[in-house]
């Protein structure tokens, strides 16, 4: 007996135990493999179990649109097009290799010290941002941003890393970030802090270097954590520099992104 003599449901069951990359490769093997490897039965398993619930919170991506897509198209749509959820302050996407959930907490949902005082922080709309508003730093002495994410919304048994997604102004209003490091930290609420001290505008030979995301923004890793079963409450991602020894200016914050670390 050959694998091709198994009922298609059986081959689909097998295929759903592989991963998106394996299924895409399988679709090139033969027409039978293709029909199974592209099937909704397989891709439904690669989507997060609660994806319906999550994307139904989006106003710009109505059910009438996504329910008519094949599950494979929907999968890749969600990898390539983060959808805005939660009052427009958060975005949701899928990690392409694993299908795990990625979220970006938009600047509006980050608690920013002095964020509501226009003298210090301004809210502007940038054409290159997924969110309606980003936070632009005029100047502060006390630099502090904290994002809270509930671990129960994240994929389970997954190591996540958090990234600050930002830009620095190119003009004379950029100040401080090449002179002193800021403290980045990711931890569960109430647990010990593991702090990284990094420059957001390092000279070229200094590590870590912020990475270009390819969407006009830069990112720098803030830390990582392991989400076992979503029962660790809140995870806090923070940026701090509160020594008040220097003035800070010219930072533009789009948000803080949480995405799974690539399997090693």
């Amino acid at each position: 007996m050959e694998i091709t003599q198994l009922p298609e449901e059986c081959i689909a069951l097998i295929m759903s135990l592989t991963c998106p990359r394996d299924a895409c490769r399988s679709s090139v093997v033969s027409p039978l493999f293709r029909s199974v490897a592209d099937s909704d039965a397989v891709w439904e398993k690669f989507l997060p179990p609660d994806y319906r619930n999550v994307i139904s919170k989006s106003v710009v991506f109505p059910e009438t649109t996504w329910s008519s897509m094949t599950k494979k198209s929907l999968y890749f749509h969600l990898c390539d097009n983060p959808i805005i959820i939660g009052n427009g302050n958060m975005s949701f996407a899928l990690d392409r290799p694993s299908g795990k959930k990625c979220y970006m907490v938009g600047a509006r949902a980050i608690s920013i010290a002095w964020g509501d005082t226009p003298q210090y922080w301004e809210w502007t709309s940038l054409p290159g941002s997924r969110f309606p508003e980003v936070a632009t730093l005029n100047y502060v002495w006390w630099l502090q941003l904290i994002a809270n994410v509930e671990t129960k919304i994240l994929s389970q048994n997954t190591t996540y890393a958090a990234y600050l997604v930002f830009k620095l102004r190119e003009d004379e209003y950029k100040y401080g970030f090449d002179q002193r490091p800021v403290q980045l930290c990711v931890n569960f609420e109430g647990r010990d802090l593991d702090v990284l001290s990094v420059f957001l505008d390092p000279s070229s030979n200094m590590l870590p270097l912020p990475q270009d995301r390819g969407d006009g923004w830069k990112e720098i890793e803030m830390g990582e954590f392991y989400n076992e079963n979503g029962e660790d409450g809140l995870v806090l991602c923070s940026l701090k520099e509160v020594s008040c020894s220097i003035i800070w200016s010219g930072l533009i914050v789009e948000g803080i992104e949480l995405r799974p670390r690539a399997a090693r």
Partner: protein
Amino acid sequence: MSSSSTTTTTTRLLMLKASDGVTFEVEEAVATKLGAINNMVEEEGSEDLICLPNVNGKFLGMVLEWCKKHANNNTNSDKGNDEVNKWWDKEFVMDLDQNTLYHLLMAADYLSGTELVDLLTEKVASMIRGKKVEEIRETFKIKSDFLPGQEEEIRKKNSWAFE
């Protein structure tokens, strides 16, 4: 094997008859690990002979061997059982040729042996994981019968997987 009459809990024996007429005498507790047999026992009650026209003796024997091992391992109450079962499952599927693997999978599916289906599908999935298209074809002896140009087109559509 019949159970001793001196024990207070006597185990009922079922007779399972395969498509080729081969019969197996199995303890009820073992056979009912298979959902389909469990249903038949519950629905039909007193019937001791169960005919299974879709499974031949060779594969039914192997399925029952698996059930027996799992039933025995699970009667011991210590926690090492999961480990023992895992180790034994690994041995069970390790040297199966593809023909046997697929026949067993069909049998396990027909008999609603969920755990065994999981074990066997996982084994086949492990033969696909991380492989190139040509390696998958070779593993499963599949000829590509796409029309000319079609394969290239599908490759392009899924180009991400080939990066």
